[in-house]
């Protein structure tokens, strides 16, 4: 069977070596042994640096995708180059001998520098290891004093020194490796035959591998698995001990019969949980891979081993057979000059299906589908087995899941066809979902595997990575188009899918320094106008970062969130524009903030010129001044020739407990402003007020009363009430008080003084311009109904009944109403009669009925 071709049994499990890319895109003549090579996890980016470049001079670093297609290259122009490695976010760490670590992105753009401290600078870094931990990507280095320095996370570089290796003389530790843990990375180091676990703060414990058959002279190589569960030790006697990372369990010990130190020793194990596999069978796939110049040895925990010859294919060609290995989370990348292979344990599901003689339901279904294609009746037979055992569901599941683990589309299709065949008999929704999901995954994976993209992800890895993270990686690689289509294809929500990609794309776009601003702004707007939730502000911010202010401003035009827009504009120093945008947004608070910033950052005159162009902002500023800065307010009005408002300020000033000169000054200023505003009326009134204040001041001096801040009417009333009749008369003339007002004032004053005789005399002095009802009313109000009645006869004829009612003389009112037979009057009397006038009410009531 072709499906199991290349499978090799290792103990109870099988391993397989799948070819991902052959040939590679790069020049096949490349000799990897002459290069420093680093391969990234989750995607297999390859970084190459020529080893013979003489300490970093003339060194060029090339970065390739998993298919060997060059993504970028850059000339090394920094210090002595030691080595490099990838972070888990696909950035390249380049380590120098002086302990400086330079971070580059995959396009060779320098990001930042991390320093390992003075000790490393003084004593050179000899060796390094880059490790992954829960905190991120970390680095361990060993310097010339054979001391280990750790940075647990390159994103927050904090250097920690580990304890020294005990008993170390002038030679370096015979071997060491990093052991990341939850509380930071530790180091396992061997001083010949003694193994120590080095921790921070001079903590160090000796480790004793269990069940060692013979004490070796020294351990020359060691390796810890990615999941930190397993450890392997290689001795000078070519023996391998493999066991648990705490050395308490020994898996096996094996004599390899190889000479010399291995080139690489690493673990191939499955430390990601994928589709289905977690739920039924926890996998414990582990194997140690040792690489010498010409062969690769794979050792299983049960002392089984497999040997691959590296050079076998290449013996007669010019292709160099040197390989580079790199452990990934579920296998090992093996890269040689012309191919990229992936060594992994055959996923259990796949094994179950293809393994000859397997009775797993998936396998039966697979066979059934094949028979069906061959139009053989066996298909029915197999299917019945499954249906009888009620295992069809499980079979479909297995085939579907297995398909995702296959790299070759032919096998994928074959398995999916089997699944689909089985599914027709069990149309459950869950199965359909699973099937659709798997198809989508495969589509994405296959798109990623295309050599142009060159991301060598397995299904398990993608599951672990999550789609969002994949999109991020694509964005980092500027695979915007692919990322965009993947999002559309998977129908991801816009804010984490297409919109996010578009904003990243836009951020990248603004960095294209050779394209003019207009073009970029236009392109970005064009692409983004239909995307929801794109933050133009963040794109603009990127433009600012790249020193393209004008472009940033253009982009901000499109930002819909005013607060973001204004914030950035202010940051750009475009305070005037910020004010304008803030005002447009309708959010006054934002406008205020922008205005304040404008005020702080510019001279007063500039500020005034700027703010006057925005009426709303101007109004807001006025409002602020009114409460906080009266002086400024007046200046503003003056400059604006807004004389009415200016005058109003002065009018306000003319009240309150101030000295008389100030009052005068204020009023004169007000008068002046009103004149300038050509408001004759207001000017006249101000003039009058000036006169009034002057008189009031005199009055206060003459009489000792409080007149200031009272109106003309009140002043007259006060004078009359205090019997300063002469003075009142004088004021009346001076201010040409109308007769009506004068009569009201005098009448009120006299009635309130209960000076009824004088009141009567006043009423006779002349024909009243306000009638006589007010006289009557004011008497009633001052509890003098008798006095009130005197005025009844003077009240206009048609109001006399009402007048009588007001005096409370209901009997007389009734008499008169009956006499003149007026319905309204009669009703009025009838309504107003209280309980004490029952008889009157009755009489009127009767009369009313007669009239009706």
């Amino acid at each position: 069977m072709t499906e199991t071709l290349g499978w090799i049994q290792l103990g109870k499990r099988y391993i397989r070596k799948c070819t991902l890319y052959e040939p590679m895109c790069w020049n096949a003549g490349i000799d990897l042994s002459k290069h420093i090579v680093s391969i990234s996890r989750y995607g297999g980016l390859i970084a190459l640096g020529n080893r013979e470049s003489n300490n970093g001079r003339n060194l060029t670093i090339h970065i390739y995708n998993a298919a060997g297609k060059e993504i970028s290259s850059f000339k090394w122009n920094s210090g002595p180059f030691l080595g490099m490695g990838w972070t888990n976010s696909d950035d390249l760490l380049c380590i120098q001998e002086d302990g400086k670590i330079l971070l580059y992105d995959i396009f060779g753009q320098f990001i930042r520098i991390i320093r390992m401290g003075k000790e490393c600078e003084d004593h050179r870094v000899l060796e390094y290891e880059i490790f992954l931990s829960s905190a991120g990507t970390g680095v361990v280095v060993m310097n010339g004093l054979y001391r280990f320095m750790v940075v647990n996370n390159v994103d927050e570089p904090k250097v920690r020194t580990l304890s020294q290796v005990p008993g170390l003389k002038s030679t370096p530790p015979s071997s060491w490796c990093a052991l990341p843990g939850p509380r930071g990375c530790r180091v396992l180091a061997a001083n010949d035959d003694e193994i120590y676990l080095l921790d921070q703060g001079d903590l160090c414990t000796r480790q004793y591998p269990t069940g060692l058959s013979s004490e070796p002279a020294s351990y020359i190589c060691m390796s810890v698995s990615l999941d930190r569960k397993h450890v392997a030790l290689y001795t000078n006697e070519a023996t391998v001990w493999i066991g648990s990372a705490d050395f308490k369990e020994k898996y096996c010990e094996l004599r390899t019969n190889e000479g010399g130190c291995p080139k690489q020793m690493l673990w191939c194990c499955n430390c990601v949980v994928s589709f289905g596999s977690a739920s039924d069978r926890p996998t414990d796939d582990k194997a140690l891979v040792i690489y010498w110049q010409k062969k690769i040895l794979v050792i299983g925990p049960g002392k089984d081993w497999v040997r691959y010859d590296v050079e076998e294919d290449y013996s007669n060609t010019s292709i160099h057979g040197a390989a580079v290995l790199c452990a990934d989370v579920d296998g090992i990348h093996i890269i040689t000059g012309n191919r990229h292979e992936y060594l992994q344990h055959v996923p259990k599901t796949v094994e179950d299906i293809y393994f000859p003689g397997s009775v797993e339901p998936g396998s039966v279904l697979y066979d059934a589908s094949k028979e069906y294609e061959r139009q053989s009746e066996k298909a029915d037979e197999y299917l019945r087995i499954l249906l009888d055992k009620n295992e069809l569901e499980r079979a479909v599941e297995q085939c579907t899941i297995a398909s995702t683990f296959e790299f070759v589309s032919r096998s994928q299709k074959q398995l999916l066809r089997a699944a689909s065949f089985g599914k027709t008999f069990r149309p459950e929704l869950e199965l359909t979902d699973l099937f659709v999901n798997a198809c989508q995954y495969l589509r994405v994976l296959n798109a990623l595997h295309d050599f142009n993209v060159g991301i060598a992800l397995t299904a398990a890895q993608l599951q672990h990575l999550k789609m969002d993270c994949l999109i991020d990686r694509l964005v980092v690689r500027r695979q915007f188009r692919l990322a965009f289509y993947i999002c559309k294809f998977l129908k991801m929500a816009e804010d984490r899918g297409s919109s996010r990609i578009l904003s990243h794309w836009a951020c990248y776009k603004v960095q294209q320094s050779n394209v003019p601003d207009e073009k970029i702004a236009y392109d970005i707007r064009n692409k983004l106008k239909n995307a929801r939730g794109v933050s133009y502000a963040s794109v603009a911010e990127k433009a600012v970062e790249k020193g393209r202010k004008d472009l940033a401003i253009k982009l901000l035009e499109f930002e819909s969130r005013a607060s973001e827009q204004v914030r950035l504009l202010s940051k750009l120093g475009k305070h005037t524009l910020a004010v304008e945008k803030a005002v447009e947004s309708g959010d006054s608070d934002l406008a205020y903030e922008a205005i304040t910033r404008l005020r702080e950052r510019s001279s007063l005159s500039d500020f005034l010129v700027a703010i006057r162009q925005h009426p709303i902002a101007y109004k807001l500023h006025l409002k602020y001044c009114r409460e906080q800065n009266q002086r400024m307010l007046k200046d503003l009005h003056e400059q604006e020739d807004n004389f009415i408002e200016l005058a109003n300020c002065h009018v306000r000033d003319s009240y309150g407990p101030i000295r008389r000169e100030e009052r005068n000054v204020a009023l004169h200023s007000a008068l002046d402003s009103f004149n300038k505003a050509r408001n004759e009326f207001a000017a006249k009134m101000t003039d009058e007020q000036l006169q009034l204040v002057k008189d009031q001041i005199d009055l206060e001096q003459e009489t000792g009363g409080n007149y200031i801040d009272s109106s003309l009417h009140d002043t007259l009333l006060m004078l009359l009430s205090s019997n300063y009749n002469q003075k009142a008369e004088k004021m009346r003339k001076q201010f040409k008080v109308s007769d009506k007002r004068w009569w009201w004032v005098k009448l009120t004053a006299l009635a309130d003084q209960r000076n009824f005789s004088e009141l009567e005399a006043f009423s006779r002095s002349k024909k009243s311009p306000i009638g006589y009802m007010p006289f009557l009313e004011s008497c009633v109000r001052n509890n003098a109904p008798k006095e009130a009645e005197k005025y009844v006869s003077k009240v206009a004829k048609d109001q006399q009944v009402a007048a009588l009612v007001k005096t409370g003389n209901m009997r007389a009112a009734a008499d008169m109403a009956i006499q003149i037979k007026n319905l309204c009057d009669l009703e009025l009397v009838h309504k107003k009669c209280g309980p004490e006038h029952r008889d009157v009410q009755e009489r009127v009531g009767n009369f009313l009925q007669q009239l009706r």
Partner: protein
Amino acid sequence: MASVDTEIFKKLARDTLTATLGIFLGKKDLVIDNALMNMLERLMGMTFLRSNDVDRVYKLEQKEILDGCEQRVFLVRPSICVMKKIAAHINADKRSRKLRKYLILAVPRRLHICDLVLEQEGVFGYVQIEELNLSFVPLDVDLISLENDSVLNSFFMEGDCTWLHSVAMSIVNFQMYFGTFQNVCGQGRGAKIVHDLVKTSMNERNIRPANSKIDQLILIDRNVDYTTALCSQLTYEGMLDDIFEIKCGTVTFEKDITNSDRPIQKILNSNDVVFNSIRNMHFFGVFNVCKAKAKEIKVAYDSSKEKSVGELKNFVHSELPALQAQHKSVTLHIGACEKMMTRLQKGTKHRPMLKETADTEHALLQDSGYYADYYNFVEERIHRQSEMADTLRLLCLMSCVCSGLDKKTYKELKEQFLRSYGFRHLITFFNLKKVGLLDELQSNSKGQTTSLSIESNLNRFADKIPAGSSIASSLANLQKKDSFRIVCKKLSLIPREDSSNNQTPKDMSYVFDGAYIPLSCRLVEQAIDRNGWKNLEDVLRHLPGDTFEENQGKSMKGGGGARDHKKTVVVYFIGGVTYTEVAALRYLAKEKKCKIIIAATSILNGKRLIQQFIES
């Protein structure tokens, strides 16, 4: 269709406050801004505050509070003068070496200007400032208010849109709980700004409104219809507000009404059965209803005498408490009625007879030949020095009805007014002119030739001139020449026949003795009927501000079965609503068989409207 439960706003407010007060652990004192006092009392109550570790509650005044515990929370409106007061308090504490933690809760949002003032006063470093986003206060099942009076002053007079933002946020909030409005229409500059703000903030904050839909939102600026708000109120609730002043849905009856030794605070809402039956009635009918109710209660009481012991027990348990509550309520309302009756029929030195005033107002509204009499009436008020706000109210009413006073009248009345009430009110007149409450008619030579085409040209021209400039306001005057009368005619706001039979109202005009249908309510009626402003442009053209309309999303399921559902409409008054309008809209809701929820920035009456613009 969503059923709108306004009580949710109370719960929301409480939750927000609990969460915000939680910033300070343990005991804390509360210092409350006067402007928020009534609102908080209505929403929270002391027991609730106590359960949130509030120890003592103070009013924010000029005077410093030196005692109290170590944590102090200021609950305030974010304004400059309030911040200055707070700064003074903190500085006083510093002087007397009191160590305290301060938290300022700005209602409903934190403003940059407050930070600025606190910084200038040198206390910014001592305080923590947070927002307390209190939205609506549910005054009743169909009435919600932001209880923010200052919208009138700050927006209509000063053009400051700060509070419009809060209005917009309240609508966003509303939509989050009750669903999107299918049709939004509005009239007025403020309404337009609010609508735009709502749209942008729904977009940019990615707010997903509740799934259900609400049929309509009608936004109306107060300056679209000042007239209604200026008239004396004649419905029971309206008169209560005019005479006793209702604060945040609560009225305080003094001793002379309660017949007891202390004043009584009464919450006015539909839970009070008696009040609910009379609140929207024209006042004249109220007394009889109250009397009838009192009799009913008496009968119920008396019936208990003939009951057996078992029945009596049942009666005491089930009916008596309700009866007692009703009895208490009837007594109070009868007391209030008596007081109102006196006010209606008797004048005092500074308060003229209400009946006469109301009749005069109605005559003015109905008859364009009544100006001279009205003039004399107002002049007498000025000479008598009647209550100033009331006199101004009458002046403004005249200006609004006539779309401006003629030059001579304007001048004369102003002069008389200043001589009576003081020169400083020159500023008051400028203020009133700015907001369009009191203005003079433009010279006739220009006005008469204004044909329609010129008018529309002017409209276009006016858009280009920054608002608030003198040209703009004078242009606006040209446009609105006699607009009130035109609108009256087009919307037939003045009923033909006299429907003064107050017992059974025939239309919304009952709230004003059948003299006038409130313009704002008529607009709402039209908007409901037409589901927007369709074909109403001809009328709206004569009203100030922008007109807009938007349909958001289709009605659910193609309107199938739409006949069955009761239409729900939210009417939002930017700048306040009067109880008279509330009554008229409640009547409208009954007539149209729909649900109308009235939202407003505050509850207004003529006096409070005017007072916002009086120079103090």
